[in-house]
């Protein structure tokens, strides 16, 4: 008589998968002399400790913004305030956006695109720090590139049909449930992106001077800094203004944190649309700076 599993066998394998991997790794390590294994094990442990430190740093740093975003979005949902307008003016960048993006699902697609892209790239705090660190000229170029990314994303989202799960998610009925729902989703999205950034930070430790605009966009996308920090990092890491602008725009519109939020809230097609719009904005922005 065949055995009857309450869950599929794959689920059982997955549960013990990590333990099996660790065991295989230990057996493989034991087959090499300690003089070879120990230094590498120490180096790996150091890298893992740095990844953990950076991950926790990002989570703790984002916690006030996540909480404020969830709190404000829960209040706005309850009071029926114009959420897209709030998102555009809220000075919390994409940390808080992780919390309130799901509540924008019910807005018009173009409007939610404007709220998300403009809110992350050109929120008041980002504009203030750009003016203070990079100067008024770069502030103007940031606003132009941000407006291009926003307009293109809004146009793309208006054409792309809504994903099946959008609008069918559980509607929060009361304030506390709404707060828990939004904060929970925000923490999950942010934790994934923070993990990716932390691994990148721990492994990519050498100087980034001399990188071109393409590499700067990649660094910005993976590093995914807060909008209050991207101008500072751009000035510290890159000498050329065009590369600085590409880094700043990619860090806010093309970054893993933003794309994960858009993917989880609005679907893969709209995330791809936002990605293409950001790439076009980076190219146009750089061309304008170098003009």
């Amino acid at each position: 008589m065949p055995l009857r599993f309450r869950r599929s066998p794959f689920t059982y394998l997955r549960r013990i998968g990590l333990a099996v991997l660790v065991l295989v790794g230990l057996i493989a390590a034991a087959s090499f002399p300690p003089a070879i294994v120990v230094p590498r094990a120490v180096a790996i442990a150091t890298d893992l400790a740095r990844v953990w430190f950076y991950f926790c740093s990002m989570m703790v740093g984002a916690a006030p913004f996540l909480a404020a975003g969830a709190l404000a979005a829960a209040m706005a949902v309850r009071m029926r305030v114009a959420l897209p307008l709030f998102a555009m003016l809220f000075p919390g960048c994409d940390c808080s956006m992780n919390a309130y993006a799901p509540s924008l699902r019910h807005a018009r697609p173009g409007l939610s695109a404007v709220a998300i892209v403009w809110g992350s790239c050109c929120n008041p705090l980002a504009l203030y720090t750009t003016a203070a660190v990079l100067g008024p000229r770069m502030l103007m170029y940031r606003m132009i590139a941000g407006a291009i990314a926003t307009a293109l994303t809004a146009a793309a989202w208006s054409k792309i049909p809504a994903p099946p799960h959008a609008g069918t998610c559980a509607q929060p009925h009361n304030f506390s449930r709404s707060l828990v729902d939004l904060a929970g989703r925000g923490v999950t999205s942010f934790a994934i992106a923070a993990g990716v950034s932390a691994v990148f930070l721990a492994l990519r430790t050498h100087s980034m001077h001399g990188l071109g605009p393409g590499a700067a966009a990649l660094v910005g996308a993976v590093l995914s800094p807060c909008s209050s920090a991207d101008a500072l990092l751009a000035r510290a890491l890159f000498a050329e203004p065009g590369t600085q602008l590409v880094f700043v725009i990619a860090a806010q519109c093309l970054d893993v944190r933003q794309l994960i939020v858009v993917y989880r809230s609005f679907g893969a097609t709209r995330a791809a649309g936002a990605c293409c719009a950001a790439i076009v904005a980076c190219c146009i922005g750089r061309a304008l700076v170098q003009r």
Partner: protein
Amino acid sequence: MEALVRAPAPVMIATAAIFAVALFKSRSRSVPAGLIAGVIAGCTLPGNAPASWQTVITHATLHSAHNDLFDALDTLDAQPGVLLGRHIWVTGVWRPPDRENLATVSQRVMACCAADAVDIGFDVVPTHIVALPAGTRVRVGGIVNEMLRQGETRYVLRDAVVNGSNEGSSGER
């Protein structure tokens, strides 16, 4: 919270309170497990911040902060000729040399959290070997020179005298 983020204590306490209320309101059975996991995770964090993920930046990045080190770098960015070849004193944190890098005196600029922290300062070539440990607050006086390294212009304090600013005496030997 200085090691991880530059956030005022009242903000972090209010944040913790919001998350705690949200967790307890959710009536989830995993709340105690989550709290225990959080405490364990917190205990694994180091007590002080590790070195920045970047090498020390030797050009100005922030116009609004005013102290002798940032002022000197601001001047070098705007008019290098004014300071090059002149003797200056700057204050910052000491990092001894290693196989790839010269010794540095720097100050950390953190916008949001440790992940975006950058150390800004000067490379230092002291006149004598300096026995101060990394992280010591120092005052360094030296002649400003520029040097090209890996395609990047870096500013160096040559013939430098390094004083540990805590004890007020020379750290040279």
